[in-house]
């Protein structure tokens, strides 16, 4: 009897092994996907003309996607190259508008001074499409999208392994491209894309160019700066809310691995058309996003062009990075914001900077403003109490201000109450000593 027959007998009809029971779950997943698809289509009223259909004849890859086969000494693969001209519009901007991000600003964002002296022309934007998200050696990056600026144009170049055997050639080509550049720009590449490519270089026993390159990962600063007003910090979310990019008929990320598997089995280029486009737009969006972020840093004092909440988050981010000078200037502008949350949010860290600089008058002014605006502002009241106690040694004032807050304790949580009561008792004791 063949192994196959033996296996199907073992796992039988009502068998209880993982193998057999994984199927209903996969079926549920498929069903879910179908349902999500249907919902998405209904809402957007857009049925992409290139949606693959089973009943159609397979379309050659070169017809579905503009590109051609590349032959190298290490093998062949498929490559698609596009150029965005300086005057092309992408979201709210033209390409020329995001062709020149400030590199000193990028250095501020990443905390690596080395970027200051680099040129954006030497940056390589990179994003991969893979066969799964679980990570591990069995995840295959079948499409590696690259992008860079040439003068005011933006070039994208997508390296595609038509099957597993083309990976070696793709990786060598990628290494060559990378060796002509100085640094990488990704979105979550530190945790994902570059890690994965490192694994692939090891598996293909070839030298890993990328792991050692300077790297601007846009995910971290984007999350810090935009997360307060977005439902998540995904590139697609940032792109539509911040960069004004509307994608039509985009392939959802979770569908991409299956598209590749379908392509492997059916060799129909239509499965991949949307995947190439998805990847290409991701790369362009990264370029636009880099410019947006560096502009924010560069023009951080010009409040009219940016969301004040973003500026506040940026200021806090820079403050954490130890860039006191720049964050001080930003906070000083932000306390003037008409948005009360932003103004209040800026007053607190600013007061701490003043306090550290021993600019007491400025600090006290901020605390008083905060306490005036909100009589339960425990931060301001504690700071004031400390100030009266230790700096001016006006114990009575300190006692009074703490008592005032304790009498209105309804808004305070237990920990705050305990700490305030402790402070209050200590102040009373100190005051009584002084009287004696």
């Amino acid at each position, binding site marked *: 009897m063949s192994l196959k027959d033996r296996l199907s007998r073992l796992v039988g009809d009502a068998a209880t092994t993982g193998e057999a029971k994984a199927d209903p779950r996969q079926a549920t997943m498929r069903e879910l996907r179908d349902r999500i698809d249907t919902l998405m289509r209904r809402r957007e009223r857009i049925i992409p003309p290139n949606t693959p259909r089973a009943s159609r004849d397979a379309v050659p890859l070169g017809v579905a996607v503009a590109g051609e086969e590349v032959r190298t000494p290490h093998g062949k693969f498929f490559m698609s190259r596009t150029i965005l001209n300086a005057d092309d519009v992408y979201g709210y901007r033209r390409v020329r508008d995001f062709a020149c991000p400030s590199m000193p600003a990028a250095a501020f964002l990443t905390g690596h001074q080395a970027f200051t002296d680099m040129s954006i022309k030497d940056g390589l934007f990179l994003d991969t499409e893979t066969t799964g998200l*679980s990570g591990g050696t*069995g995840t295959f990056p079948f499409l590696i999208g690259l992008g860079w600026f040439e003068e005011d144009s933006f070039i994208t170049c997508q390296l595609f392994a038509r099957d597993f055997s083309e990976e070696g050639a793709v990786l060598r080509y990628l290494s060559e491209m990378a060796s002509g550049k100085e640094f990488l720009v990704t979105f979550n590449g530190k945790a994902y894309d570059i890690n994965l490519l490192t694994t692939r270089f090891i598996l293909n026993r070839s030298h890993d160019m990328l792991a050692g390159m300077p790297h601007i990962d846009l995910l971290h600063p984007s999350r810090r700066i935009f997360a307060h007003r977005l439902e998540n910090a995904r590139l697609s979310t940032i792109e539509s809310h911040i960069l004004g990019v509307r994608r039509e008929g985009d392939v959802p990320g979770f569908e991409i691995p299956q598209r590749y598997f379908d392509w492997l089995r059916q060799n129909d280029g239509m499965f991949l058309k949307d995947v190439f486009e998805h990847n290409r737009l991701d790369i362009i969006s990264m370029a636009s996003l880099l410019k947006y972020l560096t502009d924010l840093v560069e023009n951080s004092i010009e409040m009219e062009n940016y969301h004040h909440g973003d500026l506040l988050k940026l200021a806090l981010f820079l403050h954490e990075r130890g860039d006191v000078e720049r964050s001080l200037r930003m906070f000083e502008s932000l306390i003037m914001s008409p948005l009360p949350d932003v103004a209040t949010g800026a007053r607190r860290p600013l007061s701490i900077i003043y306090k550290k600089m021993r600019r007491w008058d400025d600090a006290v002014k901020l605390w008083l403003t905060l306490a005036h605006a909100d009589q339960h502002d425990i931060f301001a009241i504690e700071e004031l109490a400390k100030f009266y106690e230790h700096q001016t040694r006006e114990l009575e004032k300190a006692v009074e201000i703490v008592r005032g807050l304790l009498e209105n304790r309804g808004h305070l949580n237990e920990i705050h109450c305990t700490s305030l009561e402790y402070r209050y008792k200590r102040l009373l004791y100190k005051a009584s000593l002084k009287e004696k």
Partner: protein
Amino acid sequence: MARVSLSEWLARAENDRRFRENATAIRYIDASDGSFAPYPQWVNPLLQEVLTDRGITKLYSHQARAIEFVHQGRDIVLVTPTASGKTLCYNIPVLQRIIEEPETRAIYLFPTKALANDQMTEVHGLIRELKANIKTFTYDGDTPDDARQAIRKQGNVVVTNPDMLHAGILPHHTKWQKLFSNLKYVVVDELHTYRGVFGSHVTNVFRRLKRICRFYGQDPIFICCSATVANPKEHAENLLEKDIVLIDESGAPRSAKTFILYNPPVVNRELGIRQSAMTPARNMMNDLIGNRIQTIAFTTSRLNVEVLTKYLKDMFRGRIPDDHYVTGYRGGYLPNLRREIEKGLREKSIMGVVSTNALELGIDIGDLEACIMVGYPGTIASTWQQAGRAGRRTGESLAVLIAKSNPMDQFIVENPDYFFARSPEYCRVNPDNLLILLHHIKSAAFELPFEEGEMFGKEDLMELLAYLEEKGVLHRVDQRWHWAAENYPADEVSLRTISTENVVVVDTTDTGSHRVIAEVDWESAFTTLHDGAIYMMESQQYHVDLLDLERKKAYVKKVDVDYYTDAMNYTNVKVIDDFDKKIKNDIIIEHGEVQVTRKVVGYKKIKFYTSENVGYGDVDLPQRDMHTTSYWFTLPWDLLNALQLTRLDIVDGLAGLTYCLHHISAMLLMSDIRDVDWCIGDKSGEWYVRPGNNRRVITTSPTKPVSVMDNAYDPTVFIFDAYPGGIGFSENLFDRHDELIKAVRSVIASCPCEHGCPMCVGPLLEVGPSAKHSALKILDMMMGP
């Protein structure tokens, strides 16, 4: 009253008539001086100095042989008793190599986390004293994420378990490039625990490990340690698929030990009820501890740890001011408390400790004087490991095994020669079980693409790869098979459990907030969570309102009733293919492949204490089919008819015999009782025995009960592997048929009950009053003149 020493205590016990009557064996194991050897020339002087400072001025002979073989590049398996210094056998070669080549890496594999932690302490100590820059890390499920990267890159010695290797390390081998590129040693401790289903998985994990090592150009040496089993070399070679050198002569000195097998007295001869094993355990512990003889007790369940500890604490309350004079110790206690107890034992402030087998495996608790085992630990190997906790270097020690009321325990204490002679326990694995193999082929393909002509296991790899390609998880290009699916195959199967699916028990007593109270494995759910079942947890009863197999949930409500439920199962076996056959006294003995069908058809309600049947219920659950391997024997009617028993008596006799055979088979196989199952029927699957409402019935189909047997079919007893595809137990049972039948005969014949009891043929109410008598007659017939 003056205190007595251990030898005085023993002398007194032996003179006590009642004690003597219940002790089925008292064996004295003489002390031996041990044999020693100097450090080999090549051992690094610094390492030698550190060991000498620890009082190890020379090596035991087995240690010297072991490290010499490893030095020569041989793979070894070391079989020596507890506390014979086996850890040096791997620590010396590993540390030596790291001192010589600082990039050297080693993996230490332990079956449990507790054991891994213990070994870490030891190797850390050596490294500290060496003042060398050698890094050792534990890598398991508890390792924090931020520590993982450092461990991957820097750890010279990575201590982990097979589960982590399987799901956490091998599928990410590129992150461990540094480890695999420099891997010189793999230490596998407690090798004998890798048997059955678990061992079959682990063999495949080793196949994958060796495959990854080859990719990085390494061929590490395996250093294995095992407890005493019958086939250590064979088992190591099966598990690692390499030639292995066996080292099984211990050079460690041994202290004198008295080993007693104790069977509690019969208290009800008619029902064959013996005194609970807890009673003599409690009395002996009390007496020994009262005489300041430091004692450890092992019980087979967590509950019994708590019960025995409570008894003892009550006894010593008021007599001794320190509440920790006797204490429990088991998994579930917090690490700090455990460390405190271990310290108390070493410093002798704790004189008595009651434990599950958590302590069995090597945590340093110093030299205790006495060890009481309440119930047979399941294997002779672990019985000796537990007994080894007493008397490491002290003058004299005592080990007592107290039998519980089940056939396995009874067999052991009633057959001292079986226990004390050369180990009869064989470790078995079947790594080429198709389901297990296939799973690991998937994981291996995820790790590295398979190449044309590659070998993995003993089946035709190319055919299996083609099967997976057809299933769509692999994709073939240019004679290479690549992983082509989104999932992470190592997560699909756990190495330890038979089925990956669990049923969740949801308490709906409070309609407002449903609460998950337990998880039950898929197989057990059919018999314990069917609609109408009473599910018991922590002494609380729950009524099962609904078992939803599709959603894998059972909805229960708290109840307080005076009965429990017992599912009525039928099992039907049909022979597909017989691999081998022999005839003995006209009995046909075979093994081969079978189809097993199981179905729960109903349940009985049984009253507490009186065990009366107070009702029945029907259950409608799907039947489960499985192909597996089985051993069976067929008894021709001509022979049975000559016994002058009624047909029903014959069925009862066969049922009683099979009950006992099932237990004894599990014992010989070193397996859990649930890993093998049984059935009485005929080879065609036309009829089989199943429990009816009052008595067992013979039927021709699940729906039409017929209580007669057809002469055309000869009764057959099956013992089969309860795992699809089989684990290799059946052939072993087939080979040992005579031994099995002799053991079964001995257990039933020597049982003091009159008509049958749980210690021999099973509970009287279930097997019928003639079971014992008939079983003996059938067995005599089988054994021949």
